[in-house]
């Protein structure tokens, strides 16, 4: 009994020892900044001057009154809804197309997946050149049609969505493939014996069984899209006419470009964090209640 106990204690000590690097990183680079951002959001904190004392709730008031606050919120939500529908739909479509393995389908899979190895910044730079009215491959055609990829708010949004689909569709295809593999073959065979058509099989068998995968992909996609930054910072630069400013871009601008107000940027960050938590909890609830 005594021996057993001392061994278990030794175990606990060794466990802590191995977990110490993780604990140090989580404490210093995650927990501490999280507390600091709360403090900053309640303090006057210019970029160069540092902490100038508490001023709650001024920063939050300024954050909400920012002239791009409402616009960036609406734009980010609109972008998130469109990107999620496109990526989940196309991801599922591509997965169904290459589901069974063959040499040709393996080649297709690799082609769809290669763009997801690139960074979002690299992909945005690549499309910045592709969409250019001077150097892009479609420039002559677009000129004849009198269009420009980034010229109007709607064109800019559509062009950004195309870039995002190109970069991420393969990623969501793989998630869907993993989900599809989890459906036992017998289920499809049973449906076939019962005389179900292909569409009925998809609608009544595949889709319901794929629900956990669809839920996970949707949460991932919504979270990623709400935090969109690089594609707008590099590709559209928020234009034309400030029509494509995302929330994260607004935070960056308030903190480091022009206003240089870390306090207001921190307040915006806290609002963003709370909104994200609410949206994710709501999504998980919705998927769960739909299942029962």
């Amino acid at each position, binding site marked *: 009994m005594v021996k057993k106990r001392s061994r278990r204690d030794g*175990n*606990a*000590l*060794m*466990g*802590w020892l*191995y*977990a*110490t*690097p*993780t604990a140090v*990183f*989580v404490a210093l*680079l*995650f*927990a*501490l*900044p*999280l507390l*600091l*951002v709360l403090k*900053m959001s309640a303090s006057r904190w210019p970029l160069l001057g540092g902490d100038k004392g508490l001023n709650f709730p001024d920063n939050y008031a300024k954050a909400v009154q920012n002239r791009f606050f409402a616009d960036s919120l609406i734009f980010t939500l609109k972008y998130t809804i469109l990107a999620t529908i496109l990526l989940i739909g196309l991801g599922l479509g591509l997965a169904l*197309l290459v589901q069974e393995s063959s040499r040709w389908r393996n*080649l297709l899979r690799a*082609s769809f*997946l*290669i763009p997801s*190895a*690139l*960074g*979002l*910044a*690299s992909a945005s*730079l*690549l*499309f*910045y*050149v592709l969409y250019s009215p001077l*150097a892009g491959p479609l420039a002559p055609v677009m000129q004849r049609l009198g269009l420009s990829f980034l010229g109007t708010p709607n064109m800019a949004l559509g062009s950004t969505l195309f870039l995002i689909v*190109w970069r991420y569709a*393969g990623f969501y295809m*793989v*998630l869907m493939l*993993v*989900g599809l593999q989890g459906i036992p073959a017998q289920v499809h065979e049973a449906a076939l014996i019962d005389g179900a058509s292909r569409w009925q099989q998809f609608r009544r068998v595949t889709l319901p069984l794929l629900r*956990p995968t669809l*839920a*996970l992909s949707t949460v991932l996609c919504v979270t990623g899209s709400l*935090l969109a*930054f690089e594609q707008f910072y590099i590709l559209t630069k928020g234009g034309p006419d400030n029509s494509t400013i995302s929330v*994260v871009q607004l*935070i*960056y601008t308030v903190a480091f470009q022009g206003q240089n107000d870390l306090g207001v*940027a921190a307040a915006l*960050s*806290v609002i*963003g*964090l709370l909104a994200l*938590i609410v949206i*994710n909890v709501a999504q998980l609830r919705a998927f769960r209640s739909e299942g029962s």
Partner: protein
Amino acid sequence: MRTTVAGVALRMPYWVFTGGLAAIFLFPLGWTAVRSVAPQPGTNQVHGWGFGNYVTLGGYQAGIWRYLANSAFVSLLTVTLTLLISLLGGYAFARFKFPGRNLLFLATLAILMVPYATLLIPLYVLLNNVGLANSLVGVALVLTMFQLPFATFMMRISFEAIPRELDEAAQVDGCSSFALLRRVLLPSVKPGLITVGLFAFLAAWNDFIAPLILINDSDQMTLPLAVANLRGQVQGVVDYGATEAGVVVLALPCTVLFLLLQRHYVRGFMTGALKG
């Protein structure tokens, strides 16, 4: 049926459709690679084919070699730290019971829930206070922290997949827990380590927003930042050729690694999806 003429004809629309789709995904990369060495007005490669655009890239501010070295340094440090921390952490979470174990694991996963920008603003202040302003080491530390949820999770399930009998046999032989990790368990978790390392490299090599916020000094910029800044170089006139060359240099290591390690890349998604 498959080899008959009728069979081939029947499958033609499928091949054309899927081949067309694949072409859409491959075209942007191929076009950029070709254009980066093709003649083009307004660039350093006006006449004939050649590497003029890469020469422009080489001469930009501190020079491409400096930025490549910066990016390589950040990536290697991030990969090393991520592998080391998640190997030890995964071992601790999978094989030891200690007070605060579940809390620490949940706190590590919670990093995923917090927006990038929410953490980078206080991190900018904190790193400035400890003398890591403008520092590539600071960027690598931050990027490592962002990798920890996936890496720790991946290494924990890698260790949990190894039967415990292996540990017990080694312990009967008088192995210490560290010797057990180094000699017995390490070979078994190697696939997990490759996946974690690959994801950490791709994330660190490609990251844009962390160096954008944490680095002000143009000598310390990483490659994505340098290529993005290069666009507005000469009185707002964009050098598209040099930008194309920059994208090729950025994309090359990622695509090569991806093609070599595709299996491990896909496994990374599978573990995430299975648990979710």
